């Protein structure tokens, strides 16, 4: 399997607070990796580092073999992301936002590409609407369309289905699965919805207090640790990691 993302010994400290401590993992092509953990565990910090908007104090990130620290622009051109806390500018229309971000990511044949995404994400009726007036679900679809603009090798999704109704969330999940099935790239996904994670992810990493405590298949991991569900395992990892022999 082709390694798309390689994270080695990442570390970050804010004053006396350790945000990340020796975090290492990989994401392969055609693989969806879930990054799980309680609030403040370091998930968004990790994603921000991979996006090149936060410098690690220690460790290295390689995207498609390119070192992020020394080849930032080239490495980042292989990624894209969407996050619930980073909506596209609400004062621009859907088409304008896609046009601008397409240029920022250096997308070739941009008009055709935008048309394809507008069709794929059923955004035709919103094309000339300002993103700020769209509903959460519609904005999420626009965010995903933007995230697919450059057909990224590495797609980073920070709680992409938060605040979505179950039907829209299912639709979003199927779009992302479709992306992976097409063989376009690998996905790093954070979510607090354990049912969704179990359904979508090939592999999960549990982060707590900036450290990776567990890693494995979300379908078998709970049983391996004597838990019924992934949610039970999540709660135990978050509150009582010592009971699992984790520290």
């Amino acid at each position, binding site marked *: 399997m082709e390694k798309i993302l390689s994270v080695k010994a990442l570390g970050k400290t804010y*004053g006396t607070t350790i945000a990340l401590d020796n975090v290492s993992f990989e994401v392969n092509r055609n693989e969806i990796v879930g990054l799980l953990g309680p609030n403040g565990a370091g998930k968004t910090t990790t994603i921000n580092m991979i996006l090149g908007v936060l410098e690690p104090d220690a460790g290295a990130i390689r995207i498609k073999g390119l070192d992020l620290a020394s080849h930032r622009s080239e490495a980042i051109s292989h990624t894209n992301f969407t996050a619930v806390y980073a909506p596209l500018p609400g004062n621009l229309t859907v088409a304008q936002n896609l046009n601008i971000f397409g240029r920022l990511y250096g997308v070739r044949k941009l008009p055709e590409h935008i048309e394809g995404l507008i069709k794929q994400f059923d955004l035709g009726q919103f094309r000339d609407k300002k993103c700020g007036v769209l509903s959460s679900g519609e904005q999420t679809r626009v965010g995903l369309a933007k995230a697919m603009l450059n057909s990224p090798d590495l797609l980073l999704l920070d709680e992409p289905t938060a605040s979505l109704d179950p039907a829209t969330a299912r639709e979003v999940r199927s779009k992302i699965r479709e992306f992976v099935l097409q063989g376009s790239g690998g996905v790093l996904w954070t979510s607090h919805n354990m049912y969704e994670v179990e359904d979508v992810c090939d592999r999960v990493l549990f982060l707590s207090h900036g450290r990776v405590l567990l890693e494995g298949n979300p379908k078998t991991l709970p049983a391996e640790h004597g838990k019924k569900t992934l949610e039970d395992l999540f709660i135990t990892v978050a509150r009582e990691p010592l009971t699992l022999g984790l520290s």
Partner: protein
Amino acid sequence: MSLNRIFAIVLRQLYLIRGSFSRVFPTFAWIAVDMVLWGFLTKYLNTVTSSGFNFVPVLLGAVLLWDFFIRIMQGVTMAFFEDVWSRNFLNVFATPILISEYVGGLVLSSIATSAIGLAVMLFIAVVFFKLSLLIYGLMIIPFLFILFLFGIALGIFACGIVLRFGPASEWFIWPLPALISPFAGVLYPVSVLPKWMQVVSVFLPPSYVFEGLRACISGGAVSGIAFVKGGCLAIVYICLAYWFLARVYRHALRTGLIARYSAETIS
């Protein structure tokens, strides 16, 4: 350096201006008011002084150039503020864009918006107040060029301040030209200033422009060396401002401020 990414920043600004009356209006409204105000004042001064001295090219011309400088500076900062106001830093800086490309986009946006402002000012000053640019001759080119460069420098510096200290520090930025103007001798010769202010004015590129403008009108010799000095100083300030912004950007990457900009500071 990607021209496509630079163009994306310019395009964003054009989209915003095109679709918003509240953005189009300020590109010409306040400078038009300034032209009218100073136009009538100079007309009045021409009637009450018996010397026959024409105040139009001295005062109205100076105000026009000064407003041009302010438009250039604000053109850079306004394009930057659009990302501040729409909390767009994470989206923009998570793309392959380089800080040099981003600044290049801000500068080109500023040229586009300032050109509109300059055209409106010239129209009012020439048509309604008989300001003749011929009186400045070819000197108008270095005048505009030096002010353009210094406006860019101040705009980039202002972006650095706001990036470093957060959205609320926007209020430090607006008065910057007003703080500089007394030292730059926009409306009076630098020689009337106290010694310490004259020392400060030596380091301000606009002071060479406005001294040159007055020399030009009075028929005196215009110092070419002064323009070279003013131009070089402005280029030095652009380099310093860019260095400052690049440092602030690095700091923001180290602290995570880019990703959490609305927090204003991360410590």
